[in-house]
């Protein structure tokens, strides 16, 4: 049997059969979830849309607390590497286990080739 594209009678019947089929009622769980979403997203009373505070907006922009923690860790590591990157002191010394070079004999502190005398 053929159903040429220009014959749409059976398509009308199909549309009506599917469109008028009974569907079960929405569950109470769905209604509760939607209402919870509505309340969570609801603007503040008075018309001003609920907005997060400045800190929360900044945190959200950075990706939340986990991302901020990663940024802090990366910054600390970068700073430590920077301290000891150009000589055998600092972090390199810690990696090498050569603690003796961290403080020299004159109790000075060597950073990137600059010597600081205590006192």
């Amino acid at each position: 049997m053929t159903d040429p594209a220009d014959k749409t009678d059976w398509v009308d019947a199909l549309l009506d059969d599917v469109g008028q089929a009974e569907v079960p009622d929405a569950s109470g769980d769905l209604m509760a979830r939607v209402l919870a979403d509505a309340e969570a997203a609801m603007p503040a009373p008075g018309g001003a849309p609920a907005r997060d505070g400045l800190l929360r907006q900044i945190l959200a922009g950075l990706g939340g607390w986990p991302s901020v923690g990663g940024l802090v860790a990366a910054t600390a590591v970068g700073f430590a590497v920077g301290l000891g990157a150009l000589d055998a002191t600092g972090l390199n010394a810690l990696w090498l286990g050569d603690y003796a070079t961290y403080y020299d004999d004159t109790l000075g502190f060597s950073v990137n080739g600059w010597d600081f005398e205590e006192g």
Partner: protein
Amino acid sequence: MPLPLVNGGGGTLARQKMTMPLDAQDTDGPEEAALLARYARGDAAAARALTTRLTPRAYGHAMRLLGDRAEAEDVAQEAMMRLWKIAPDWRTGEAKVTTWLYRVVANLCTDRLRRRPRGPVALDDVAEPLDPAPGAEDRLLAQARRDALARALASLPERQRLAVMLRHFEGATNPEIAERLDVSVEAVESLTARGKRALAAALKGQATALGYEG
């Protein structure tokens, strides 16, 4: 001023459904828009009213297209979430809330249908049900029809799809469709005619398998 009830065309049949179509239960447009404006001002009662009014309609529409309860619930929840988010920016008078929601649900369903792995469904492709109880074959046929139609609808341009669905799923008359889509009645007639021809082309060869005389 409230708009008249949408009760033309297949409205009588539509009212027999367990879940009413989007605009067949009560006044459309202004009342929902007013509730949405109240919601945007932080009115919890408006949130409850909109949830009660619109969620069953969104779910029913998604259920007819997807045929899967869990998926239909996800789509309804997502569509309603988009409504909550757009509420502060909603411009009353530019669009009807129910039509906007109808469009969002249809698009979400289309996205899901496109992600489904199966191709066009024919009865022979559907596994026999384990339950041989009376009615199982009818359910299988209904599922095949729904899947085939949903996939074909997904291939239509949005305005054609909406016009066809409003006509056959909501029982809306051409003037009502014209108002909701903000086009002329003549344009609606053209959209529905072209939409049905496109559907017939997309469903070509499946009439017999779906239980129709092509």
